[in-house]
């Protein structure tokens, strides 16, 4: 049964993908494509923890299965893909090239689900590579000039990231003498190996400076693809960290300090650049950079203070779950807003996940932030103080960014009815409110809701709202920064170099 369940989780999306090719089965495959994550969802719900499938002759010796971390990631990944798939059915109803979209959608999904099940590095990397390369097709689907540019930058950075990851994994596996996650986590790799794994996966996570592709690629994709790109595919990088870094084993002060710094930087960098954007989806992409900073902070803390990892792991998992649900709901909602305009019900629907992201009391974001904070107390004093001071400010920043999002949405003119998009989106938004409480990992949010905790969550929000109000009152005009920010000068340098080498031919 374990075998059947695991095979179906990956085989069903791939079977649907193959069925898209012959003209005879194409319609059926397209109709069933949104349901592709169902076997994986079932596996996440019912497979016992001890269930492990060993395939010693596959790749470098494959082990598939679900531990607590993998189950959580598989659950929110499969759910988000399900929501995005159902949304895509309506979104693509009149798209002439929807077969190609579904093909890339299913291939990307198979990779994304597969990496949640991987308990050895080769199968993880296989699934990760499938996801990365197939997602190129989603990024460039609209075939506009921006899409091709975003796709090119996405691919270059993705390849750099994967090669760096592989180099890091080679070193980690050399230290561990085994390709299995259980052994890799117990090994003591060199700081260089830890740095390479962190940086390689950091491209996917969108760490500052490695994020350049993200604000270009996420918004340019069709809305359901943006939702999974920003909602769950960024978490594939996070899961990789949890799988391959020696978290909770030994202290890695340098890598940990770097990740803590980049995490803190990301929180504010994402907000600051997000505020300068006019496009809803770009704002959301920058918000993802900011939010992934919270998770990077948690992982960095685990590298610095291994003794607090038992507290941090559930916190990071909970944060990933929260952000996956909230961010995908916001992207799907942005799609509705772009279609139906800034009507009241649309704004109300956007406000719910926006509040969660800002950490409003009793939302998933509040739960995640409180748990994360509890895990950070054991850091060295300087880091603990910095985190304690900056986390509320980051929450204020998130509130400000979400206010900006709603303000931009409110000014949108509708292009027509949202059709079948709205029901899927609203159902998903509601699910995003309920699910984190239902799925609460054991040991998380030990304190439960209490008035003082709520108060500490409220003042940053109040600060953010006050700033937003002030900006509106002063009619503050924000500078315009092109999406992808630093990628623009980088591209200029590359073009100049290409011209130097070959004056007749610009970059292709």
């Amino acid at each position, binding site marked *: 049964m374990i075998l059947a369940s695991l095979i179906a989780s990956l085989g069903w999306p791939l079977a649907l993908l193959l069925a898209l090719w012959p003209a005879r089965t194409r319609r059926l495959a397209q109709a069933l494509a949104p349901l592709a994550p169902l076997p994986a969802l079932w596996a996440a719900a019912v497979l016992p923890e001890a269930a492990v499938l060993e395939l*010693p*002759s*596959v*790749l*470098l*010796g494959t082990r598939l299965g679900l531990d607590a971390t993998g189950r959580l990631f598989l659950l929110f990944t499969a759910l988000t893909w399900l929501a995005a798939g159902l949304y895509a059915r309506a979104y693509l109803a009149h798209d002439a090239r929807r077969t190609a979209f579904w093909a890339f959608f299913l291939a990307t999904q198979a990779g994304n689900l597969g990496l949640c099940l991987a308990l050895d590095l*080769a199968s993880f*990397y*296989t699934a990760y*590579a499938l996801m990365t*390369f197939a997602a190129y097709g989603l990024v*460039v689907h609209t075939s506009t000039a921006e899409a091709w540019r975003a796709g090119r930058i996405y*691919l270059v950075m993705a*390849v*750099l990231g*994967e*090669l*760096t990851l*592989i*180099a890091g994994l*080679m*070193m980690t*596996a*050399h230290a561990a003498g085994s390709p299995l996650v259980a052994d890799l986590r117990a090994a003591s790799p060199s700081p260089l190996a830890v740095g390479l794994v962190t940086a390689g996966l950091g491209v996917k996570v969108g760490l500052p400076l490695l994020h350049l592709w993200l604000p270009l690629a996420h918004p340019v994709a069709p809305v359901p693809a943006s939702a999974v790109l920003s909602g769950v595919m960024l978490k594939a990088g996070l899961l990789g960290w949890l799988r391959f870094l020696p978290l909770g084993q030994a202290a890695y002060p340098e890598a940990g300090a770097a990740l803590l710094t980049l995490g803190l930087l990301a929180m504010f960098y994402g907000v600051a650049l997000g505020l300068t954007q006019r496009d809803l989806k770009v704002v959301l992409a920058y918000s993802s950079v900011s939010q992934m900073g919270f998770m990077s902070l948690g992982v960095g803390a685990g590298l610095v203070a291994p003794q607090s990892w038992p507290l941090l792991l559930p916190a990071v998992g909970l944060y990933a779950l929260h952000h996956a649900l909230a961010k995908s709901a916001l992207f799907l909602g942005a799609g509705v807003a772009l279609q139906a305009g800034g009507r009241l019900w649309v704004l109300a629907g956007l406000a719910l996940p926006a509040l969660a992201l800002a950490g409003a009391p009793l939302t998933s974001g509040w739960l995640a932030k409180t748990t994360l904070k509890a895990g950070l107390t054991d850091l060295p004093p300087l880091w603990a103080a910095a985190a304690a001071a900056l986390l509320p400010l980051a929450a204020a920043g998130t509130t400000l960014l979400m206010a900006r999002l709603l303000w931009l949405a409110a000014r949108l003119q509708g292009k027509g009815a949202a059709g079948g998009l709205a029901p899927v989106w609203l159902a998903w938004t509601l699910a995003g409110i309920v699910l984190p409480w239902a799925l609460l990992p054991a040991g998380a949010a030990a304190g439960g809701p209490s008035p003082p905790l709520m108060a500490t969550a409220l003042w940053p929000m109040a600060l953010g709202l006050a700033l937003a109000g002030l900006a509106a009152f002063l009619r503050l005009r924000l500078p315009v920064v092109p999406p992808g920010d630093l990628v623009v000068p980088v591209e200029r340098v590359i073009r100049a170099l290409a011209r130097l080498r070959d004056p007749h031919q610009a970059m*292709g």
Partner: protein
Amino acid sequence: MTPNEALPLAVIVSSLLPGLIIFALPERRVGLRSALNLLGAVAKLAFVIMLLVGVDAGEEYGFRHTVLPGVELVFKADALALLFVTLSTVLWLFTTVYAIGYLEDSPHRSRFFGFFSLCVTATVGLAMAGNLFTFFVFYELLTLSTFPLVVHRGTPQAMRGGTVYLAYTLAGGALLLTGIVWLHGLMGQVDFVHGGSVAALGPQAEAQLKVVFLLLIAGVGVKAAIVPLHGWLPQAMVAPAPVSALLHAVAVVKAGAFGIVRIVYEVYGVEYAQSLGLLEPLAIAAAITIVWGSLRALTQDDLKKRLAYSTVSQVSYIALGVALFGPVGTIGGLVHLVHQGIMKITLFFAAGNYAETLGVHKVSELDGAGRRMPLTSAAFSIAAFGMIGVAPTAGYVSKWYLGEGALAAGMDWVVAVLWTSSLLNAAYFLPILYRLWFRPRPAAWPAEHIPAHGWRETGWLLLAPPLVTAAAVLVTGVFAEAVWSPLAWAKLIAAREYLQ
């Protein structure tokens, strides 16, 4: 003659005999010629399978024949020989099928297939050579039998490419011969034995042995296209696609790489080569070649030329693996002998299909070819991902073992070389895939020779070989640790080379 002596001979004769008969056949006997070709290829495969089963069980195959006093022709079909023999035999079968389709209705086919058979005869002979003399004989036979294939078309460009090819390989042969004669002078006939034999000459011969090593490696390094001895390979791409497959995957460059393996492991012995300090310079030469070949590939618009420079780079992975002191690196190098073969032959088959079907020779003309020829392009894409080293392809397995081998040998810088090379591989293969699949197709192809019929985008004989080899790229990657995989065979060889 016992069966264990006869079987290696049968492997050689099974292509030699059909080759000689084909030379005598009139041009129009297409059916008989094709039947002879395929019969020879299938018979050879059958003999090879018998050898594989036997060697796996620990049997020893081989025979000796005295030519002159002190000079013997020695053949031994050990595990290492069979790695190369199996690769050549299987790929030769596919290349023969492909060549029959590719050369349909072109002139001089008897000559072509005659030399084609001689070429593979030389390759298996060289693979099973049991001493340096035998190796040299077949190494030169290989040069002479491939030259007519390179110049087959007879165009001025082909003649020029052929001349360059001949100049390089004959010069390489001369270096090799000098090294062999020198070594003969020192110790008489040099048999290939596990752990090598020259260490017995003692410390006073060390200086000479270093020079001889350089001569031998330079001699085989010409065929292995180690920079700066690689100049012939990009020139030779004027040859027809099946010949390119022979040059790049089945026979020629492999013969050079295989020579490096034999010289390091079974003439010098890897421990002794390491103690003489010969392995690190070899690794550095291989690393330079890997990066240089990829850099040159980046700027080629001619598809086959880009693939040729890619071969320069990829074949040196084998030399690199050999130069990494330790069994893991050896496994990586040996398995890449097979993996590079199946990946590169797929790419050349596909390149040939674009040329034969659409008249497309340049990367810049490939826009939208994926829509017109999806199966060929899918095969090309799988092999290209393999070259980059993306899992789950064969190339991933090679690079993984090379990286692990480098770390085990304490040569961490090799990981940086692999990183750079993979990045460059991506930089010259991904733009091709982008053109194939994402660019709109042109209004008309340069010269569409073969119209599409539903699923059949080109002739079956052209389509089937790349599909089978592309499937092999995936299967050898996905089932890398299976008992029948090339990786398992490479591990068997490494275990036998290091457990002396």
